[in-house]
């Protein structure tokens, strides 16, 4: 009897310890699990594959903050690597006040990675020619709507205080007509707003990167085609990393893939705890 009751009342500190160890041990002793790519991740990858770099760019909106960074930042990195590998012009912006710092980190990391390999000026990733960082607009919704007619009106200056219209890349990319896809990476309902204000109103394709918790919110939009693809959670990010690194033979860091071991074991640990709790519950109920 006591044993079954114990199963029902394991101290929370032991639960915390078990979860902590299940995350920590795979990080200290990493093991690789080959990932299987799910359809919505593949769809987004395929959309970016179809963009003609001569005529269109992509807009990545880093709509996240440090709290959701572990899941979402790898997506941002993977998308940048994909775009730079294909030499697609990239516009980056953010709708979160805390977003610019992370976007800046990601842009620095990926441009350094590409430029370390570059042999010539043409191979390099240059600011203003290959990418532009628009930063954070104080009134996000107004900027989203304005960008439909003129991006440089919505952002007269970029993050570094350059006049947006004067940048080389912006001579080609004027408004949403020149954007192949907008990808909003967010831990909130922001991608839904991109669908409402950019896709519905201007017809530009919208994709999303979402945390595992918020991803279920976007399935209705994926089914209707209002969203053209989604990277869901750390697993989605690892799938995207896999797609990009295998197709373009890139050897940079793959943080999401590295985190998959921890996530797998942590999920199993939570399931094990739920099973133990239920065994205790049924055993004690029968006794009563």
């Amino acid at each position, binding site marked *: 009897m006591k044993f079954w009751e114990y199963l029902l009342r394991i101290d929370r500190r032991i*639960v915390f310890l078990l979860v902590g160890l299940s995350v920590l041990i795979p990080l200290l002793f990493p093991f690789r699990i080959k990932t*299987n790519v799910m359809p919505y991740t593949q769809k987004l990858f395929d959309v970016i594959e179809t963009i003609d770099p001569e005529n269109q760019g992509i807009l990545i909106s880093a709509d996240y903050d440090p709290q*959701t*960074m572990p899941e979402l930042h790898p997506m941002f990195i993977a998308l940048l690597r994909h775009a730079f590998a294909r030499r697609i012009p990239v516009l980056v912006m953010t709708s979160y006040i805390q977003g610019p710092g992370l976007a800046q980190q990601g842009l620095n990391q990926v441009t350094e990675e590409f430029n370390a390999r570059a042999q010539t000026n043409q191979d390099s990733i240059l600011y203003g020619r290959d990418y532009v960082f628009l930063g954070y607009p104080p009134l996000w919704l107004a900027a989203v*709507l304005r960008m439909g007619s003129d991006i440089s009106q919505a952002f007269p200056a970029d993050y570094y205080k350059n006049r947006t219209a004067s940048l080389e890349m912006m001579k080609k990319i004027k408004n949403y007509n020149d954007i192949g896809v907008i990808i909003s990476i967010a831990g909130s309902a922001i991608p839904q707003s991109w669908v409402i204000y950019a896709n519905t109103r201007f017809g530009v394709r919208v994709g999303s990167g979402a945390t595992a918790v918020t991803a279920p919110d976007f399935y209705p939009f994926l089914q209707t085609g209002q969203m053209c693809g989604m990277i869901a959670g750390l697993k989605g990010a690892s799938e995207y990393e896999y797609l990009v690194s295998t197709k373009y033979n890139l050897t940079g860091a793959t943080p999401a893939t590295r985190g998959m071991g921890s996530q797998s074991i*942590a999920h199993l640990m939570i399931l094990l705890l739920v099973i*133990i*709790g239920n065994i205790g519950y049924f055993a004690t109920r029968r006794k009563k």
Partner: protein
Amino acid sequence: MQRTIPLMIVLIIGIAMLVQFFIPHRISKDIYMNFLDWLGIIASFALVLGLGSLINHHIDKIRRKKEHWQYSWVTLISIVVVAIIGLFGGMEGKGPLPVQFRLPIGDKILVVKYSIQTIYDNVMTPLGATMFALLAFFMASAAYRAFRARTLEATLLLVAAFIVMVGVVPLGYYISPKLPYLAQWIMDVPNTASKRGILFGVGLGVAATSLKIILGIERNWLGGGK
């Protein structure tokens, strides 16, 4: 009069904003763009108002020595320090003030930067990530305590959660290659059906409330003053 004028403004602008959606004429678009500019001005005032309110709240807390008043100093000092660095040091240390100083330590020089990006990388990012990481521990503890197959509905939820949790990690694929697709089906069909119902409900609610505000039936936004 104090109530009539705001109500009239909401009625006229509310209808104008509705109409411009259906008339894609240049004039209508220009008016719309003007309103977007106004929105920016109003938001700037809201920001000042918010900041003033936050500072007042914490000054009041310190003055009255309310519970945990000491932490209000942390907030106020942080606001001032970050504002100074942001205004004069710039985001990346490219502002008018020098944003790094060099400390000679023996025969080496330690460079200390104090730009917004440095604060962000070393304070905001670790703090934010830690807060979110703690969630995993609380979720595990809550799932262990509360996730019981007490009823048929709870059992269904439990089974669905099991499939999704295993299906969304690569390990699930090795248990059975069909497991991720079963998890995907749960997300695609039952999840989407319920989400769609919620979305319709929310959409209709938003439309009804907006109409009530435009027509002056809903007046709570005017505040409780006379």
